[in-house]
């Protein structure tokens, strides 16, 4: 499986959809409500070596009454970010990329924690050290763009935003 082509395909499919949703959704709902459905909490990330990887964890919750979809994630820290899940198969732990868009049902959340689901930052532009800050821009079909800033930490010592 090729993650990059999958991402490109998702973007090709997702962006027009986003435009469509924004176009028909905007006049009806006030700005505050429309983006009020999604909350991103408890984000933190692991240290990573320049050119290699880092994982980010936290919870993306949909408090709205309609499903919302995470369409893409970008960051100045890494050119490629995906949502991965760890699965155990044939006696091995494997990473599996979640397909874009990642749909979050109303009242549901995407909970990311070590050993489960993570945001994978790949090909890091520079090493991420303990205490460094990372900014992510998450694009949702309904909630629009959200920016989160979080710290690099250790598992035992998760810094809060």
């Amino acid at each position, binding site marked *: 499986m090729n993650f990059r082509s999958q991402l490109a395909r998702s973007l090709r499919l997702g962006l027009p959809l986003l435009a469509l949703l924004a176009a028909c959704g905007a006049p009806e709902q006030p700005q505050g409500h429309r983006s009020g459905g999604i909350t991103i909490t408890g984000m933190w990330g692991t240290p990573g*070596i320049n050119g290699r990887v880092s994982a980010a964890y936290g919870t993306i919750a949909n408090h709205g009454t309609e499903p919302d979809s995470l369409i893409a994630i970008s960051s100045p820290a890494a050119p490629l970010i995906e949502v*991965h899940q760890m699965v155990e198969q044939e*006696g091995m732990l494997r*990473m599996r990329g979640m397909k874009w868009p990642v749909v979050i049902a109303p009242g549901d959340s995407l909970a990311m924690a*070590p050993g489960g689901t993570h945001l994978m930052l790949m090909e890091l532009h520079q090493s991420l050290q303990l205490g460094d800050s990372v900014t992510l821009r998450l694009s949702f079909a309904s909630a629009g763009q959200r920016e989160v800033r979080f710290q690099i930490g250790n598992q035992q010592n998760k810094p809060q935003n």
Partner: protein
Amino acid sequence: MSKQPLQVLLMNNGPGRSRNVWESTLAALLLLLTAILFWGCGNAVGQASRSYQLTDEHGRAVTFPNDYRGRKLVVSYIYTHCPDVCIVTTTAIEKVRKQLAGKGDDVSFVSITLDPRRDDTTALRQYAELRGIDTQNWHFLTGAESTVDSLLDDMGLVRRRSFIEQNESGRETYFIDHDDPVVLWDREGAIRDRFKGTTLNSDDVAQAIHELP
């Protein structure tokens, strides 16, 4: 693993299989023999049959496992492109190490790379430094690909490269699906216990280390 013959034997004696007296006697004798073998090994579950020339995170030559004889050893397997599982394991081991503080002078920790192709000395040193790991008694080992691969094979490490891609500059990107054992070795170099890195309970491991002969 030396446990296998026992399992095979038990499976051959499953229900529905017609047996005669001789077969039963033979099975009993083999079981007895296996038991004696286990007894003789003093509960060891394995042993490295040879030694491997490796390099630690500072580029120092290490003969594994010989250089650690006389010390209790906690062996884990990681690679620096591993974003999640290896870090869970590494963090859990760090917790064990802190728990042993003061009582762990005779314990060494070793993390062997699953990815000798990309994990050179520098990458492993950065991996440790970024996590604030004191490498005084925790070594991150790599070596020639063929050496590390045969070590991993000998240790029964199940692993497989996945998501292999070439990027624009022709550099290969991949991850490694792998097993996550944390293995305890005694001072004689016998393998005594095996834990799962991602679900490691630091109390259990600290206790097991304490009880190692």
